[in-house]
């Protein structure tokens, strides 16, 4: 069972100006990383992988959706409702930029 991923009480975007504050949140970063590996994923799968609560997960996915990083689709499969999320192109670009920024900030300390 993975450790629950929770949002920090205070993020520090001011100290880390190069990092995208929307992606920097732990749960949002975990969600984008997960979604980068699949074509689309169900809400329940994301919840299981991040071990988060429905409310927190829904709120963080909404923030990512509002930023245009993920797209949501509701549909019925064999009469059961499914909420599917997929990463958008801008979400993929934002995650790539974030990783590049992280690597630049860490510099030589990355392998220490």
């Amino acid at each position, binding site marked *: 069972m993975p450790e629950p991923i929770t949002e920090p009480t205070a993020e520090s975007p001011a100290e*880390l100006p190069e990092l995208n504050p929307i992606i920097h949140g732990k749960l949002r970063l975990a969600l984008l990383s997960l979604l980068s590996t699949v074509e689309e994923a169900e809400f329940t799968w994301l919840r299981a992988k991040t071990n988060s609560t429905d409310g927190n997960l829904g709120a963080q996915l909404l923030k990512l959706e509002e930023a245009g990083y993920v797209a949501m689709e509701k549909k019925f499969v064999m009469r059961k409702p499914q909420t599917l999320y997929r990463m958008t192109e801008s979400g993929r670009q934002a995650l790539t930029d974030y990783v590049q920024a992280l690597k630049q900030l860490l510099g030589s300390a990355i392998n220490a």
Partner: protein
Amino acid sequence: MTTSPEEQELKDRLSLIETMIAEGRQTTESWGWTFVLWGIAYYVAIAWSTWGHSNFAWPVTMIGTGILTGVVASRMTNRQPETTIGRAISAIWIGVGTSLFIFCLSASIAGRIDLQTFVAAVAAMLGAANAISSIILKWKGQFACALVWWASAAASCFSTSSQSSIIFLVAIFFGQIVFGVYMMFSEARERKTQTGNSGAAHA
């Protein structure tokens, strides 16, 4: 050398990305049972066509097994997200499965193809599907399975009808039943240890 809290936080973020990408790629899909099921289906079709002398043995068995596979697989993978590799593997097996079905149906109804050619064609197609899957999954175990099928295809071309039957039965046993059971054990072991080292729990 000490690490500042900010630096540690950045490292934690990088580690989180790596962990989540690994988590996302790790699926719990199980496909070993399909190899065993289709191995049994081939035996049923062979027995039915040999002792039942029916032209419908192959098509009926293949359609029945295809429907059964589709129903069980849709229930098992219902909550699994689709990955690019997963879709590639599905595409191979759907494509080869359709080719096999059309070939087996036409060959058995027409009745103009000798057993050696029939076995060689089926074995070559199964060898190709297993080889492509193994290359995508980087799984040597499945490539060995492909070699079994290819060897059977080649051997069948130089065999008598009765020898070709034996070759086919042996290839089904090793390429479907034994490999399927091995795959099921690998999948169970990897689910238990949460690793995905072999192609069984594919990345």
